């Protein structure tokens, strides 16, 4: 049953980063993503891409934490995007309105093209 979230980070340019997730985005997983994201933002990251390619399950508490991250990033004048969502996760994001605040890209290649990382 274990599917604990693991996060890895890839800095791109001076203001960009891709954050890869693996596993279940529940409250604990959401908090882990938030901790990493806020650290990156403190380090000057203004373009953050969350690549969820190895995440197959989310819950609404985890997603609510992602909304907090998006809000903080917008407050700072930055941009946050998502890519490699499963169809069900993308549907969940639509329901919860994430698509209004953050861009959703098919894959990392498209994301980097549309959200250049200086």
């Amino acid at each position, binding site marked *: *049953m*274990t*599917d604990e979230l693991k996060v890895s980070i890839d800095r791109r340019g001076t203001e960009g980063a891709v954050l890869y997730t693996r596993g*279940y985005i*529940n409250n*604990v997983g959401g908090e882990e993503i938030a901790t990493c994201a806020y650290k990156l933002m403190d380090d000057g990251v203004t373009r953050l891409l969350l690549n969820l390619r190895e995440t*197959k*399950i*989310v*819950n*609404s*508490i985890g*997603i*609510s934490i992602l*909304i*907090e991250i998006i809000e903080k990033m917008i407050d700072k004048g930055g941009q946050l995007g998502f890519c490699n969502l*499963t*169809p*069900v996760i993308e*549907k*969940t994001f*639509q*329901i*919860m*309105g*994430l*698509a*209004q605040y953050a861009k959703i890209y098919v894959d990392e290649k498209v994301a980097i093209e549309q959200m250049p990382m200086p």
Partner: protein
Amino acid sequence: MRDTAEKELELTLPMVPDIEIAAARAAGNLARQYGMGAEKIDEMAHAIIEACINAREHAYCADKRIYLRFIAGISPDGRLRIDIWISDHGKGFDAEARKRPRSTGSPQRRGWGLQIIEAHMDEVDIASSGEGTIVHMVKFGD
């Protein structure tokens, strides 16, 4: 369909962290046996997860258990039909009032669980009282 032992599945789960994953996996295994497609199973899994989390987070029940029942059957039009009941013996809530649809993407952070359940399942009805809550939901195959 297989023999009756496989058609029905009853579980009583403890309210421990991430138990919703066990519930979703068990239902997924059942639905897969009967040929439900991966994406529908995944939608069902996400609905089950939200219903179990609601029971754990909101029910405040003394017995600290979640009761699940899954039945796989064939609907009159020949499609696979999975019925799911997720129950708790908790304090209940006003399910009718909660049902009022909210506009997608209004800025609340929490409070999306029931809408996610509705969106991922084909039928949902909730019976709730001071004795507890029963969420009954149905997912059809192709």
